[in-house]
C-alpha cells in the first residue's frame, strides 16, 4: 500500500489549495482514467460542434454525385455517402445536432425533474402521493416507446424530438432527486428557513435543490448520453431529424441497409461516433459519481 492509496490522500488538491490546472488534470487522469477519457471525448465533441465550419473543408448538405460512395482515402478521410457528401464533415456537423439535442433535452429534463422532485418531497402528503403515481405512469413506458409516441403526435422535427426526449427524463430525475430531498427536508436548516418565513419557492430552489446536486449532476451527464442515443434512434427510425440536416442516426439509416456490404464505411463511422459519444458521457458521469461520493472517494 502506497501513500496515494490511503484515504484522504490528495485532499489538498480536492480542496483546491495551491492548485494548478495541469496538476488537477493529472490527478484526475491518475485516479479516474476512464472518466478523464470520457471528459476528453466530450471536450473534442464540443470543439467539433462549435468550430464545425472552420475545421471542415466540405459542405455537409450539398450533394456531389461525382464522388458518390468513395472509400476512405486521402481526399475523403472517412469516405463519402451515396450522395457524395464527405462523411467526416457530416459527422462533425452531426456532433452539433447531437449535442444540441443532448444538452437541451438533458438540461430541461433534469432541471424540471429537480424542481418537481424536490417540491414533491417538500410538500409531502397528498401532493407527493399523487405526483409519484403520475410519475409511475410515465416510467411504466420504455423510454423509446414514450419518445416515439410523443414524436408521432407532434410530428418529426428537431424541436419535437427534444420535447419527446425530455418528457421521459423528467420522472426519472424527479424520482432520484425526491429520495435525496426527503432526507434533506428533515434537516433543521429547512425548518429554520420555514421559521424565517421564506416562501415555498425559495426554500425549494435555494435551500433544498442545491443540496441534492450530487445525484442531480450524475443524472444530468447520463441524460446527455441517453439523449444522444435516443435522438439517433428516433432519427434512424425516420421520426427524428430530417434530411438533409446531418445527424448520426440519419447517416446510419442511410447507409446501414443498402450499403452494408458494398460501402460499409457509410454506416460504420456514424455508428462509431454514436457509441463513442454515449460511452464518453457515461464514463464521465460514473467518474463524477465517484468524485462526488465521499464514501467511494477513498478507494
Amino acid at each position, binding site marked *: 500500500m502506497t501513500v496515494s492509496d490511503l484515504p484522504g490522500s490528495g485532499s489538498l488538491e480536492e480542496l483546491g489549495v495551491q492548485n494548478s490546472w495541469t496538476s488537477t488534470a493529472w490527478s484526475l487522469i491518475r485516479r479516474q482514467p476512464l472518466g478523464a477519457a470520457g471528459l476528453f471525448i466530450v471536450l473534442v465533441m464540443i470543439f467539433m460542434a462549435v468550430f464545425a465550419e472552420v475545421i471542415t473543408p466540405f459542405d455537409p448538405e450539398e450533394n456531389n454525385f461525382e464522388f458518390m460512395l468513395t472509400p476512405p482515402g486521402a481526399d475523403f478521410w472517412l469516405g463519402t455517402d451515396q450522395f457524395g457528401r464527405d462523411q467526416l464533415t457530416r459527422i462533425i456537423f452531426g456532433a452539433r445536432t447531437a449535442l444540441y439535442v443532448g444538452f437541451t433535452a438533458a438540461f430541461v429534463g433534469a432541471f424540471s425533474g429537480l424542481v418537481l422532485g424536490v417540491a414533491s418531497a417538500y410538500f409531502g402528503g397528498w401532493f407527493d402521493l399523487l405526483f409519484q403515481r403520475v410519475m409511475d405512469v410515465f416510467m411504466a413506458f420504455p423510454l423509446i416507446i414514450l419518445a416515439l409516441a410523443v414524436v408521432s403526435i407532434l410530428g418529426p422535427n428537431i424541436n419535437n424530438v427534444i420535447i419527446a426526449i425530455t418528457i421521459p427524463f423528467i420522472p426519472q430525475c424527479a424520482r432520484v432527486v425526491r429520495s435525496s430531498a426527503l432526507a434533506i427536508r428533515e434537516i433543521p436548516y429547512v425548518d*429554520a428557513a*420555514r421559521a424565517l*418565513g421564506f416562501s415555498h419557492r425559495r426554500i425549494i430552489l435555494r435551500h433544498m435543490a442545491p443540496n441534492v446536486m450530487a445525484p442531480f449532476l450524475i443524472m444530468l451527464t447520463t441524460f446527455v448520453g441517453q439523449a444522444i442515443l435516443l435522438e439517433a434512434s428516433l432519427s434512424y427510425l425516420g421520426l427524428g431529424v430530417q434530411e438533409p440536416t446531418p445527424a448520426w442516426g440519419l447517416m446510419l439509416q442511410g447507409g446501414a441497409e443498402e450499403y452494408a456490404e458494398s460501402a460499409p464505411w457509410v454506416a460504420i463511422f456514424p455508428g462509431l461516433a454514436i457509441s463513442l459519444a454515449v460511452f464518453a458521457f457515461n464514463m464521465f458521469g460514473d467518474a463524477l459519481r465517484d468524485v462526488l461520493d465521499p464514501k467511494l472517494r477513498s478507494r
Partner: protein
Amino acid sequence: MTMPETQTEMAEPLIQVRDLKMHFPVTDGILVQRTVAHVKAVDGISFDIMPGETLGLVGESGCGKSTTGRCILQLEKPTDGQILFHGDDLGSMGRADLVAMRRKIQVIFQDPFSSLNPRMKIGDIIGEPLAVHGIESNSADRNKRVAELLTVCGLSPKMADRYPHEMSGGQRQRVGIARALSMKPEFIICDEAVSALDVSIQAQVINLLEDLREEFDLTYLFIAHDLSVVRHLCHRVAVMYLGKIVELAPCDELFDNPTHPYTRALLDAVPVPDPTIEAGREHRLVKGEIPSPINPPSGCVFHPRCPIALDKCAGPVPELRELRPGHFVACPEVS
C-alpha cells in the same frame, strides 16, 4: 432581576399556550393508509410567557419539549389547542399575517452542524432574511447589518465570507443566533441551543444569550435537559413528562422545593460535583421505563413509576393546581 407574576395579570403575556395537543398519527396499510394509533407527543399543555421572561422547559428525551417548540413556531400544525402571541391566535392566521408574525418569533436549533445550509456563505445565511422581508433591501446596507450582527454575536465580520464547514461548533451556533436576531424578534425559542456544545463553549453561548436578552429585551422559551443550565438562565421552569406539564414554578422555588415526584426524581439524578457528598447521597431512582406515548397510562401518566402512587392515581387525570403562589403541580398527593 424581578420575577414576573403570572397570577396577578400585571401585564399581558407575550405567549399564551392553551391546551396544546399534538398527536401524530401512526399509519398502516399499503394502498389505503389508515390510522391505527396516535403518538401523543404533546397532550394538553397550557402555559404563559411574560415579556422579558425566560421560561425553561425540561424533561427527558421524547417528552414533547421540542414538539411544543415546533408547534409554537407553526412548523407543526397542532391537533388541538391555541397558541396566542400578543393575544392573536397563530393557528387561525392567514399566510401573510403568519409571515409577518414569523419575524417576531425565531428559533435557535440544537445542532449547529445541521441548522445551517452547507451551500451558503455565512453572510448569505444571515443576510437572506433581511433581503426577503425587505428589512435591508440595499445590498451594502445589508452587508453592514450582517457585520453588525456578527459582531454582536462575538464573531468577526470577516466570517461572512466563510462557509459553515469552515467554522467550529461554537462559531456556528453563534451564526444561528445571529440569523435569529436578524429579524429583530421579540421571542426566541432555544431548542436545546447549547446541548450539542462543549461545556466551555456552552458557558460562552449562555452568557451571549443572557447579554442579548438584556440588550434586545428578548423573551426566551429555553428547551433543555441540562438542569444546571436551566437554573442559571431561566426565571420559571416547566417540567414535562410524557406530553404533559407536571410542575411549573419559579426557578429557585422549583429547584429548592420540588414537589412532584417526577421533578424530585429528575433533580435527584443530577450528580453533585463532590465525590464525598455524591457517595453519601441517597438516590431515589425511578423504577421502570418511560411508557410509550402511543398508549400512555390512564390518569396521572407518571403513576406506574411513581414512588407515592395510590390506586386512585389511575383514575381521573390530575389538573395543575396552585400549591404556592406561582407554583403549580399536577399531583393531588403532595403538599
